[in-house]
Every structure is written in structure tokens, then in C-alpha cells.
């Protein structure tokens, strides 16, 4: 292996490490965008509220509970929990995010931050601890 190849390999490994660990930046998985068109930290939970009985108890309790909205509030963010079929009067930034992601499979958590820029879209975590661990990666 030439020195140039070694250098390229080390460079790619460093990029990968930064993407995963953050390196002062935000983990981007997937996409790395601020998915909700609103300033600062924002968290959107999209769920079908008539189907909570199908969810594991801890995940259901986390979705309806106070821990996640409290974490968002403590970190100066905004929080919404919505049904995708009931967005008639939902303000635009949140409604647009619901439109974009509702087909990804519910329940879904959308995390967004514009400072520093980062975001996450994925299945709602299994419990409060996992949800908070995930959100912590997107706040200062």
C-alpha cells in the first residue's frame, strides 16, 4: 500500500469517525438536515393515536408521556405530537414535516436543529431513556 493510499484511507476513516461520533458537529443519520423548517431545536412525533394499543408498553408510555417534551423544553426547543390524518390546523413547518415523512412507518420521531444544523428521522425509540439518548446528540 502506497503512502498516498494510506493517507486516503486514514482520511476516509477520519470522516467516518466524525460522522459517527460528531467531533463537535452533529451526528447525521440519515441525511443530516434540519428536517423541520423552524429555528433551533425541534422534535416532532408522528403517530397513529388510535393504534397505541399495538405498541410495546414502554414505547407507548414514552410517546404519550412527559419525559420527551420536558427534555425538549429544558433544551429550549419546540415539541409537537401529531396524528398524520389530523393536520388541518397544524402550523406549516410541522405539517410539511408530517407530509414528508408520514409514509416512513409509524410511530416516527423527527429531530431537527438549525444551530448547529443536524437532524434525524427514524422509528420512535423503545423507551424514554433511548429517546433522550438520541435527542442529546442533536443539542449543544
Amino acid at each position, binding site marked *: 500500500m502506497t503512502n498516498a493510499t494510506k493517507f486516503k484511507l486514514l482520511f476516509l476513516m477520519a470522516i467516518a469517525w466524525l460522522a459517527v461520533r460528531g467531533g463537535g458537529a452533529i451526528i447525521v443519520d440519515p441525511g443530516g438536515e434540519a428536517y423541520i423548517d423552524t429555528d433551533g431545536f425541534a422534535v416532532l412525533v408522528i403517530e397513529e393515536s388510535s393504534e397505541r394499543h399495538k405498541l410495546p408498553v414502554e414505547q407507548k*408510555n*414514552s410517546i404519550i408521556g412527559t419525559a420527551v417534551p420536558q427534555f425538549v423544553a429544558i433544551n429550549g426547543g419546540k415539541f409537537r405530537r401529531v396524528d398524520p390524518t*389530523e393536520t*388541518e*390546523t397544524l402550523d406549516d413547518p410541522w405539517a410539511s414535516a408530517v407530509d414528508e415523512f408520514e409514509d416512513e412507518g409509524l410511530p416516527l420521531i423527527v429531530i431537527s436543529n438549525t444551530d448547529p444544523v443536524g437532524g434525524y428521522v427514524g422509528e420512535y425509540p423503545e423507551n424514554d431513556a433511548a429517546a433522550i439518548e438520541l435527542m442529546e446528540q442533536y443539542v449543544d
Partner: protein
Amino acid sequence: MTKTIEVPGVGTLPVIERKGDTDLFGFDSEKPDEGTAFSTGYIPRDLKEQPYGSIEYATPFDLPSPSRSDWPELVRAYNAGGASPAHHFINSGKECSNQNGLPYCWIHGSVQNLMVVRMMQGLPYVYLEPTSAGAIIKRFAQRGGNTPEAIKHLAEHGVCEGSLWPPNKLDRDLVTDEMKENSKKYRITEWFELRNNSFEQTVASLLYGYPVTVGFSWWGHMVLAVGLAVMDDGSIGIIMLNSWGPKWGFRGLAVLNEKMGTSFDQFALRVGTYSVVA
């Protein structure tokens, strides 16, 4: 001395085990400035005229009810996780409503349901004045009612912000175009109707995160069921939010055992409109 129970994350709540719990039912009868005792107003519906499943805008509750043997474990996990509507209400730091002498418990129980669901949806707090809907439904008369009347009005017309309607005011001049437009932002779109006298469905609904407007024939009163408690004997009680102001019970909250908490008319709210802008 009223018995109390500690509900994690909510507080120390008084327990109603029988109607003679005078510490709670004699509330403020000697202190009219703090509200009027026994202002209730619930009229149980006639099931021959309005059978189960016939209420417009409310669908029959058809979700599975957890086994009774699992209730204590489920309720402990639910309270430990701060998952009940009562936890959202307490965390909000807001006060319950006060019908203060009007026989409008039925609309207070329904509108408080919307306010609590809005808290759970993460919407900014807006105080909604129940009388703005109740007065129109009852043509400005002091008459009792029931949730089905409230449901139809709240679905079609909504309820306005407190800034546009003073508390408990029965005044036709308050019905303005601005008030009507404002009310449309605060409508209730998805109700469940629970089986009459089914405590199992009340418990299930609360475990799934749907507050329940409940009507008690023994009390002639409608209130809002917002949570669950494991009683000293291991049975399950419901946490109710009254509409007699924050000095009653613990910030308006008390616990009813199964006997007292089994509700004849009961309607759960799943989704309210998401309006934010006043």
C-alpha cells in the same frame, strides 16, 4: 380527615371512597367567594333515545382492554414514566377551570378534555372558556346537560379563548364574528364513546393516553378522568380533574375508587385541532 394517596409524579391526592367524604363534598359551602359547592349539572342520557353507538362525532371504543390482573403493573409503569394526562396537567403548572355555580359541569368536563389533550400534543397553552360553548348550547339558560350535546357543538363550532369570553358569563352580546372565528380554531375532531358503566374501558382509555369525560349518576356531576392510581389494597382508582377551581382537592385533582369511579356516560378524546395562533 380525608384519606390521601401518593401518585408518583402527580402529588398527594385525596381519595373519594364514599359520598360522605365531607372534606371534599362540603368544599367551600361556607366560603362562597371560593366557588359554590355542589354546582354540578350532569343529566344522564336516556339510552332509549340515545343508545350506545348513536352519538354523532363519537365512535364506539373498540380497543382491547388489558387484563385486570395486569393493571397494577401497567399503572405503576405508566405513573413511573409520567405518561398520564394528569402528569401533563401537573407539569403545565396551569389551573383547572371553575364553573362557580353554573350547572355546566358537562361542558367544563369536555372543554378541559380538549385543553389537556392540547397539552399532550405539545401545543402552547391557551385557556378556553367552557361557558362560550355551554351558553350557546343552552340558549344562555342555567341548565344541566351531557357530553353528547357538547360533542356536537365542539366538533362543529368549537370553543373560544378566555380572552374573548369572561369566566361563566351568560351574555348574548359576547357572541361576535370574532368569537365565532376564534372558536373554530379549537374544535374536537376525534372522540371515542366508551361503554356505559365499563370501568375496564375507562382504565384502558387512560392507559392509551386518552382523557375521559366521565358522568357519575350518584354525584350528578361530570368531571375529567386524567389518570390512574394503585390503591392501598392493590385495586385501581381513577384520578379525576374537577371544575371547582384549584383549591378543591389537590389542584382540582382527587382519586375515586372503582365503585365511585364507574361512569355511566363516558367519552374519551383522542385528537383536538392543532391551532396555535390566536
